[in-house]
């Protein structure tokens, strides 16, 4: 399949390399900045900071947490994605929403909610009379992070399952494989790219998280970086710590690339894979309900009830800037989601269809943009934009662009898996039938990778709705978003005033995801012969 891709790839030239260059520049600038800052450091002091046993402890903590969160997320996301695409239960769209919504809750809010629910003065003790030990440390960080990062895996798996060509399974069955064998030997291997894309995001998220680990008092690498900026107002050593984090990320990217090198998952049939008819969930099907109950309870019901409880107490306090903040959040999140996906499509395409082109590396590179600690990224943008384009400094346009570069990695996974699942032969036929390359791409390819695009839009929109560090420093002066309000209020222990803003983030995220899902299910499945007409 790979060789076919080279001979017949549909799009080449500027539609790929222009966005490619934009992305390279967007990611190279902060990397260059980090090195500029890093070489300024005093090397004897630096050695003291970098070579100390404590860094090993931090590294160990960070990796342990990443592995734990990934394992927990896998256990939650896999069955959930299966139920959302293959289960015969009612409300599969509802399950999808359940699997996406936790992503809209800012990590530190999730941590606060868990802290507020447990302990002697926690909600569960006060309201239900059940005293749960206060969460903290590894367990606390693990639970808080898992409850809102599992959607990364869920959405990736879901769009992969949706895009699976069912004819492969049917052939396997007709060749005598049992249901279990079909699952293990046909379905699972095809989910590999999606699984890796999702887990990479989760791991990178854990590596970069600061809010949750600081509240749960579990010390990781990014915690140390934050302390260096916050405590010492120091940009030099923080740059070194950021570079160490990037090296860690780089090695993980190499592992993923190695694992996926020989994966070919495109369907052999028509580009529009036949979707699987709903199927019974089997003898263990009843287990689905308690499972859904626990997941929904911890990741959606608990945070929403807690926020609702706080909001009720805060109703007396007027929140005048609410509308303005909603407008601010949407005006940053919608363009960022669109721009990110528009950049992600050509890059994902290049990485799948041009396996020998240097442009393929772009996709790996994009993950580095995700792994740069946001505060370092923001400082780099301040530095670069004041030096190169002072007029752009602190404009919404620049904020959107920087966030698009930062979140590109979130958008790449689902779109890339979708390209992997489509058969290049469709593009070729469209081309052979006289479409211009771009038109063939728009008409024959885009509709097929739509589930991937939908997932990517959802990822970026939700991430942007709760984005903080970049908005903090790069937005226009006076710009208000819901996320900024939530942070500013919780930081002063004014939970009641913070809650309505947090609830609005969840509400708008739910509406956005709901709209996306409607579009997804209404898509006119292109007939195999559609390009010809």
């Amino acid at each position, binding site marked *: 399949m790979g060789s076919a891709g080279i001979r017949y790839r549909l799009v080449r030239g500027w539609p790929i390399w222009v966005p490619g260059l934009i992305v390279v520049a967007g990611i190279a600038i902060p990397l260059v900045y980090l090195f500029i800052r890093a070489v300024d450091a005093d090397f004897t002091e630096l050695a003291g900071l970098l070579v100390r046993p404590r860094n090993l402890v931090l590294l160990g903590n960070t990796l342990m947490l990443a592995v734990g969160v990934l394992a927990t997320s896998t256990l939650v996301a896999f069955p959930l994605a299966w139920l959302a695409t293959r289960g015969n239960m009612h409300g599969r769209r509802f399950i999808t929403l359940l699997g996406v919504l936790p992503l809209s809750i800012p990590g530190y809010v999730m941590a606060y909610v868990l802290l507020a629910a447990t302990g002697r003065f926690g909600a569960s003790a006060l309201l239900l009379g059940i005293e749960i030990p206060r969460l903290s440390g590894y367990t606390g960080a693990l639970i808080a992070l898992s409850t809102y990062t599992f959607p990364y895996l869920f959405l990736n798996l879901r769009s992969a399952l949706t895009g699976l060509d069912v004819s492969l399974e049917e052939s396997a069955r007709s060749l005598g494989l049992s249901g279990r064998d079909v699952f293990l030997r046909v379905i699972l291997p095809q989910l590999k790219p999606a699984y890796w894309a999702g887990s990479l995001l989760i791991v990178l998220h854990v590596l970069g998280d600061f809010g949750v680990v600081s509240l749960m008092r579990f010390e990781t690498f990014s915690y140390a970086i934050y302390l260096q900026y916050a405590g010492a107002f120091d940009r030099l050593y923080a740059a070194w710590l950021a570079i160490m984090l990037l090296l860690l990320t780089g090695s993980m990217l190499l592992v993923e690339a190695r694992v996926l090198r020989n994966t070919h998952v495109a369907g052999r049939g028509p580009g529009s894979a036949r979707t699987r008819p709903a199927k019974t969930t089997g003898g263990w099907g009843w287990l689905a309900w308690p499972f859904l109950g626990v997941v929904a309870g911890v990741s959606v019901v608990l945070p929403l009830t807690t926020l609702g409880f706080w909001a009720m107490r805060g109703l007396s306090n007027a929140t005048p800037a609410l509308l303005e903040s909603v407008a601010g959040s949407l005006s940053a999140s919608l363009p960022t989601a669109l*721009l990110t996906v528009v950049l992600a499509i050509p890059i994902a395409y290049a990485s799948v269809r041009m396996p020998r082109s240097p442009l393929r590396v772009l996709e790996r590179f994009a993950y580095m943009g995700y792994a740069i600690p946001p505060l370092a990224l923001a400082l780099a943008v301040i530095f670069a934009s004041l030096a190169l384009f002072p007029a752009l400094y602190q404009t919404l346009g620049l904020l959107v662009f920087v966030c698009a570069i930062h979140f590109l990695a979130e958008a790449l996974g689902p779109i890339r898996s979708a390209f992997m699942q489509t058969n290049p032969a469709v593009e070729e036929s469209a081309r052979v039938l006289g479409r211009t390359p771009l038109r063939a791409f728009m008409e024959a390819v885009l509709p097929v990778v739509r589930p991937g695009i939908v997932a990517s839009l959802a990822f970026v929109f939700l991430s942007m709705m709760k984005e903080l560090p970049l908005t903090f420093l790069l937005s226009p002066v006076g710009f208000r978003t819901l996320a900024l309000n939530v942070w500013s209020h919780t930081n002063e222990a004014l939970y009641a005033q913070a809650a309505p803003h947090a609830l609005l983030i969840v509400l708008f995220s739910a509406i956005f995801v709901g709209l996306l899902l409607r579009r997804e299910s209404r898509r006119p499945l292109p007939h195999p012969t559609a390009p010809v007409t």
Partner: protein
Amino acid sequence: MSTSRLPIALVLFLLTLSACSAPETTSITLYSGRAQSLVEPLLERFQEETGIVVDVRYGDTAQLAVALLEEGSQSPADLFWAQDAGALGAVQAAGLLSPLADSIRMRVLDGFAATNGEWVATSGRARVLAYSSERVDPLALPSSILDLTNEAYSGRVGWAPTNGSFQAAITAMRHAIGENETRAWLEAMVASGAVSYGNNRAILEAIANDEIDLGIPNHYYLYRYKADNAAYPVEQTFFEPGDIGNLINVAGIGQLVSSGESPAAERLVSFLLTPSSQAYFANETFEYPVVPGVATSTVIADFDRIGNLKPDVALDSMRDLEATLNLLRDVGLL
């Protein structure tokens, strides 16, 4: 439109959008490390009284300080309002703050402005001793922060080593009692099982939750918990007058060199020191006034005695944070 032209068009569109804003009235730009929820009402009053528009970038004090260092002489900000003296000190040390008029800095209490007047305090934030009202006898409390290492308190004290206000307190301690003594105290505290928390609120919540009995947080959080629940089982007090444990850190404001001559900016600084603004801090944010003779009916304790309670430490010496961080790393707290 093709897929690939779209991003460029979108970026251009957004850039044009954001380039269209022309100020007509006098306006100043404020970087505020103080939370919007706390200071916005005050800033609105200033705008009403003077007609000067204040454009505010709210953020985290440390992040704004680092951003100002990065912006250097090109900063669009006129004023930096910080949550602690250390951040102001860092910006001042980079030569980014210009001295305020004498008439302004003479108005605050002794020791509540930078020596050369690069910034003035706008309100005071005290370090206190918090304790469980259920498990601790107020008469058996230590008179100095240095006594917290006594065996009687072993494993019962909470602190927040990663928190900026704790680090500022340690910097002050280094200046007051010396490097080695500070190290010895920290080591003794670690040895006696002091419990680390992420911030001041966590310390109070841990006392209420029976995890610890004592803690050294900032003074104003407890009033907010009490406002929610008057029976919250935590109380707080000062150590004896002049004890280093009673450090009064400040929120303060300074004008940036990049702002040039700006009477409007100076007016805002002046406004924050008026009796009515000072009373606002005392009553709404539970902070200590820094201008003498502000009569207030505040709930905060000892508001007229802080000049007497506070240790003798120059707040500008507190920018020397690097050494504090090294010390905290050495004893294994960071």
